[in-house]
Each structure stands twice: as structure tokens, then as C-alpha cells.
């Protein structure tokens, strides 16, 4: 009987849900010639693993964080989480440290984002103009070198470069140029005012090749007759760039701006490495504040930390919406 039921279920799946009549030891299908349900819905079957993965690793954590942000959940205790409504949000929004740390992240983004768009764009335009293909390839390879260096090595390299006492930058400024002494040389890292610009320079350098490739791909897609026609009509190189090339690179710029805005506002590793948990440090941004509260301080107030994360994320979403509006297509 149970075997019959199993067969019936399988047949139901394979026959677009046609009713399967079960009789003892006998199975009959009513209706037209069956067309496989699997065949008809195979797109969903193939999508299923991805959908499940997405739901479990993307949607569920977000939903959970939203829920936690409305509770007084403390990770180090076994007490159950109590619903506290908007208390965490009120506390976050009334905490000066939240605004300071959000401001620091925005300040970093304001330095990083233009650098990571404008410089690769200009480099891409220059390389695109190189007539000698071999030379163009060499330039592309050189540009891409930083992008293939593992993050750990990048951090070690720049930590050494920026080191106050033994770094080559200060060595140059003190020993070679004589502009500074070891008593007043710039302190690049460790929570000074120069730390965020220093990290921004490192990040721009690191992404130079990667971002230039985006623009090179965009430039290759622009029909060659457009700038040529403009030049014949008397347009200068600057006008060609401004009125023909740049508008056609806007979709790429939009993607890069949105991607890099998210990463720059959400930087955490670099700040942990170059600034630590000093609350007065420029590197103590909202991401560090969130991590500090969730995994370092007191009983690990993850409800409060989740609210920090939600406020930070919502602020970013509002800004991204505005960016999409700014970079919208005007064709």
C-alpha cells in the first residue's frame, strides 16, 4: 500500500498533477498522455539550489539581524532575548559616537570614491589611446599588479611604507629631503588625522588596475565612428571626452560608484589593522563601533549592535538611491 502511495506521488510529480487513482496493487492514471512536470518546470528545479542558498545565507541573516535589533539580546548571557521595540534605535540615534563614527566613514568615502573613479577613468582613457598594442598590453599588466596581490601582503607592504620610524616615506622626507626630522615627521597610521587619507591612498592604489579594466571595457564598446565624426566636425579632445566618451561610460561609473560606495562605507579590516579600538581615532567608524559592541565590550550587546548595523545600512541605502538618481541615463 505504502509503495503504491510512493508510486502515485512520483507519478503525480511527473504528470502535471494529474490525479493518480490508487487501488490495492493496481495503479491507473486518468487524463491525457502525461507530459513531465519536471520537464515543464525544469528552470525552477535548476534554480532551486541557488534559491535555497540565497534564502539561507542572504535573506535569513538579514531577517535575523532585523529581529535582533528590536531585542535586548546579549551574546554572553544565556538569558532569552526580550522585545524592546525601538529602544535600541533610539539609543543608537542619540549616541554621539554613532554620528561621529558614521561621519568618519563618510569622510573616508568622500576621499576614496572620487579617487577610485576618476584616476582609473583617466588611466583607462590614456591606455585606450595607446596605438602600439604591445605597449598597451604592458600598461594593462602593470596596472593590474596591485589587484592580484593578496590583501595580507598589501597591508604588510603599506604598514611598512607608512611606518613612522623605519618606513621609506618618512625616510625620504627626513633623510633625503630634510623637510622633516624624526621629531616632527608625519604620523601616517595609528589613529592620527592622517590615517584615513593614508588608508584611502592605499585603497585607491590597490583598486587602480581592477577599476581601470572596467573603464577599458566600456571604452572598447564605444563605436569608433562617434568620436571620429566629432573630431571631423571640429571638436577638441576634451570635448570628445566630455560629451561623447563620458556619457557612454556613465553606466559603468554608476556600477562602480554603487559598489565602491558600499565597500568604502563598510570598511572594517583596514581600520582594525591601522587604527584599533581607540574611540577617538578617525578609524573608529560605525562598522568598528558595531563590532566593538557585538564582540568586544561588556556582555556583547548584539541587539544594540544590530541596530547600529541597521541604521548604518539604511543611511547607505538612502545615499545609494540618490546616487542612482544622479547617475541615471539621460540618453
Amino acid at each position: 500500500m505504502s509503495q503504491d502511495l510512493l508510486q502515485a506521488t512520483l507519478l503525480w510529480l511527473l504528470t502535471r498533477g494529474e490525479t493518480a487513482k490508487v487501488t490495492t496493487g493496481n495503479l491507473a492514471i486518468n487524463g491525457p498522455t502525461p507530459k513531465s512536470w519536471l520537464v515543464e518546470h525544469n528552470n525552477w528545479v535548476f534554480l532551486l539550489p541557488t534559491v535555497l542558498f540565497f534564502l539561507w545565507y542572504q535573506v535569513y541573516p538579514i531577517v535575523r539581524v532585523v529581529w535582533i535589533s528590536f531585542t535586548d539580546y546579549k551574546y554572553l548571557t544565556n538569558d532569552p532575548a526580550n522585545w524592546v521595540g525601538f529602544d535600541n534605535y533610539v539609543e543608537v540615534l542619540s549616541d554621539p559616537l554613532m554620528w561621529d563614527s558614521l561621519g568618519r566613514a563618510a569622510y573616508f568615502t568622500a576621499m576614496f570614491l572620487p579617487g577610485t573613479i576618476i584616476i582609473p577613468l583617466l588611466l583607462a582613457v590614456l591606455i585606450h589611446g595607446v596605438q602600439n598594442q604591445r605597449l598597451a598590453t604592458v600598461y594593462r599588466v602593470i596596472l593590474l599588479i596591485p589587484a592580484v596581490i593578496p590583501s595580507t601582503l598589501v597591508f604588510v607592504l603599506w604598514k611598512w611604507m607608512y611606518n613612522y620610524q623605519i618606513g621609506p616615506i618618512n625616510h625620504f622626507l627626513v633623510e633625503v629631503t630634510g623637510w622633516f626630522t624624526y621629531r616632527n615627521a608625519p604620523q601616517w597610521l595609528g589613529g592620527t588625522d592622517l590615517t584615513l587619507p593614508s588608508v584611502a591612498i592605499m585603497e585607491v592604489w590597490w583598486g587602480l588596475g581592477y577599476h581601470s579594466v572596467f573603464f577599458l571595457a566600456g571604452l572598447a564598446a564605444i563605436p569608433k565612428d562617434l568620436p571620429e565624426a566629432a573630431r571631423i566636425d571640429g571638436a577638441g579632445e576634451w570635448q570628445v571626452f566630455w560629451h561623447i566618451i563620458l556619457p557612454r561610460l556613465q553606466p559603468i561609473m554608476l556600477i562602480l560608484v554603487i559598489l565602491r560606495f558600499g565597500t568604502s562605507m563598510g570598511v572594517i579590516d583596514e581600520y582594525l589593522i591601522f587604527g584599533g579600538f581607540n574611540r577617538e581615532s578617525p578609524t573608529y567608524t560605525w562598522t568598528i563601533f558595531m563590532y566593538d559592541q557585538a564582540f568586544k565590550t561588556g556582555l556583547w550587546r548584539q541587539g544594540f549592535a544590530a541596530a547600529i548595523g541597521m541604521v548604518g545600512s539604511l543611511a547607505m541605502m538612502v545615499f545609494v538611491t540618490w546616487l542612482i538618481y544622479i547617475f541615471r541615463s539621460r540618453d
Partner: protein
Amino acid sequence: MRKEKELIYQQQLRQDLLDHKMDRREFISKTLTAGLGLAGVGVISNFGNFAQAQSRPLTPTFYQWIEDLHPGIPQVNSRFPDVNYQIAPVEGFGIERFVAEAKKKDSTWDVYVGQTPFVEMTAMIEADVIEPWDNYIPKDVIDDIIPSIREECTINGKMYGWPFLLDVIGTGWHAGIVKEAGLPDGAPATWQDYLSRADQVIESGAAPFGATFDANGWRSLAPFTHSLSSDVYTSEGLFDFTGDAAIEALMLMKNIMSKSHPDIMLAGTSDGGVNGTPDEVAFAAQRVGYYNKYFNAPLRMAQYWDNPKDLRMGPLPKFAGGEGSTVFWTTGAALFKHGKNKEKAAEYVKALTYDQQIWKDSIAGTETAHPGQLPPYKSLYAGWKSSQPDWLPDFVDLVRGQLDQAKAITNHLFGLQQFQIGKPIWESYLKGEERNPRVAMQKVVDAVQAEMKRG
């Protein structure tokens, strides 16, 4: 065979019930299921990791740096053929993974070697991650631990940490620089002497900077305070930032800073800013004469010198009329409450902590490392005193003498965080932004209290 397995299983259930790892309802359910025989045991595996526990070898996990600095550990492991030695998924004092597993009443590991009591022990107890060693550690071992260290590892009368590697804050100096400055090649006895010698180093041109320290509070403010008085903790176990001793220590720090490299206050470049600090770079670059930190630091940094044998070490200087104490901490072993093989874990940690080769390598150094960390046991020092090995440097006996007065930072949930919260605030005085040290320290107290009120 089947009966034997059922009996083992029943004993395991009983132990878990006694250890409060399950409630009575779960115990009864499992016992009833066990009545199904081996089939039942199969079903039981859904309740927990019993089957895994029976077959799991002793699984210790070590903080990465311990393996890096102590190459003798594999030798100890070889005496435990089945040991499943692992490196802990922690960095920068992080214990997140341990807490996450404890919430599921589970632990991948049996023992964690890397716990610093004042940093994380209270948090591990709060989160129900660890249990006391008292039921497993032999009495002769407990009696052998130096009393101040035993106190450090004890909370509410129970020993939650088995001490292993002892770090003591002391003084290191570069004998080459000191001699060039025309100074005696010995440890400065008082802070006054220390400061005047640091001045002499700079004036003589022997080095650009006289002295340095690690700006993290538990490595400078606390030990400097202890050198005047170690009775500097409030009734709730927090550091007394506004006490006279702490104020004196803060003023001393400002005095030393005036003879030090300008980046002394900057955060370090690893482990969330607490390691890779500027003092280490200055000492390694032979730009400074005197140095206060735990001995591991000058030992590591001296390896970069033209002549590493120029390193000298001694105890922390005293304030005139001061107690002459310092700060120490041990990095030891924590026993996971939800781990297995607890008796075996105790046997292993005992073998590890008494291993003579590990101590020789630590104190005298090897080709790969020279941590300078000391043992926590009276008997080891007594043995070396009665029959001094040729590899034993003089500073060990000096430090052992200071350990009778030394004190660890009191265990508290904010044991480490109080210093991290306070550092940028007391630095307002060190940088000259705030002229009154008491005002700066009162702000530190307010900030720590505010954070504690938050939870």
C-alpha cells in the same frame, strides 16, 4: 559487546546530567531511547555528539603565537600519541567561536591554551564556555603555583585558568647605548633614576630617544601604578583610575614621553591595534635606551640589533617609598565545559606546563624564537636555584623575587575594555590638551561607568 556499550552510554548520560549539560527531561528521554539497544544509540546521536565523544581523541587548541614562540610543543604532543593538536580560530583576544559553540552546548575542542585571565576569563565564564579545573587538576600542582598567579586564575574560589606562560612587565635596556652614554650597565632602581638616565642617553647622543613604553594601559599605566601601590582596584574589581597611585603613574608616563619617540601613543598595526606597537619598532631600530614592557618584547626586538647580546633586563623601577610591585599575566589553559576528555586534558596540560625543554627554550631562546616567558610553578624556580643551569639568565631570579609582590590585573568583564575605553581620554592629559591629570582620569571613570550601564 552491546550491553557494554549501553552501560558506557548510561554512565555518560549520568555524567552529563550531573554536569548540568542536560535537563532531567532530556536525560529520561535519552535513557528510554537507550533501552532500544544499539538501534537506540544510533537514534541518540541525534540528541548530541555521544558517538563522536567516544571516538574523539584529546583535542587541544592553541593560540597561534604560542606555537610560533614555543617550538617544543610538538615534543610534548609526541608523548600523547592520539592528540589532535589544533590552532584556535581566534585573533585579537576574540572568543566568538567558543561562545557560539557553547550556546549549542558543544565544543570542537577540549582545552584552549591561550586564555589570559583578565582579558577573557570572566567573559568565558559568563557565556558558560569554560568550567573550573578544580575537579581535574592534581592538588600538588595547585600547591605548586605561585600564590599571586593562583589568585589571578581564580574567580569565586574556583580555578578557571591553568597558568602556563608568565609575562611580567619589567625593564629592558640596550647595553651598547647605555655604555656609550656613560651610564652604569644595570637596572635603574627608581623612576627618578630611570628618567635621569633617559635624559643622559639623549644628551650624550648615544640614541635619539631615552626611554619608551607600550601605551596600552594594561602594559604601562597599570604596572607603573603597581610600582607605587598594587592596592588600586575598586570593590567591584575595576582599576581605580582616580586613585593617587594611578595619577602618579599617569604623570610619570608624561615624563617618560618627553624623552621618547613622538609616535609612542599610536595604535599598533596588528591584533586590533594592541600589537606591533611603535615602542617595539623604536627598540628594534636601536633608537632608544630603556624600555618597559613584558620581557618577551625586548627579547624579540633585540634579535634585530647589530649585537643582540647587548640586551639587558631587570625589574620595573620603583617610586620612592613605593611598593615595588609590577603587573604580570599568564597565558594559560581553559577547560571547555562542553568539551570531552577532561582528565586527559589535565594530564596533557600538566605535561605541557612542567616540560623542562619548553622552559629552557622560552628563557634561553632557540634559533627561531626567544619569548622570555616564565613558568608559574614554585618548584621549577626552586630547582633552578638549587642547581642553576648554565642557560639561566640572571633576570629570571630578579623577576621571581618581584613575583611575590606582583599583582595581576583584577578579573572583571571590563578588565581589558576599561583600559581601551580610557586610553584616548587619559591621552588628553599626556598630549597636553588637558592640564589636570585628575580631570582626565575622572572622565575615564565616567566613560567606563557609562559603558557598563549600557550592559
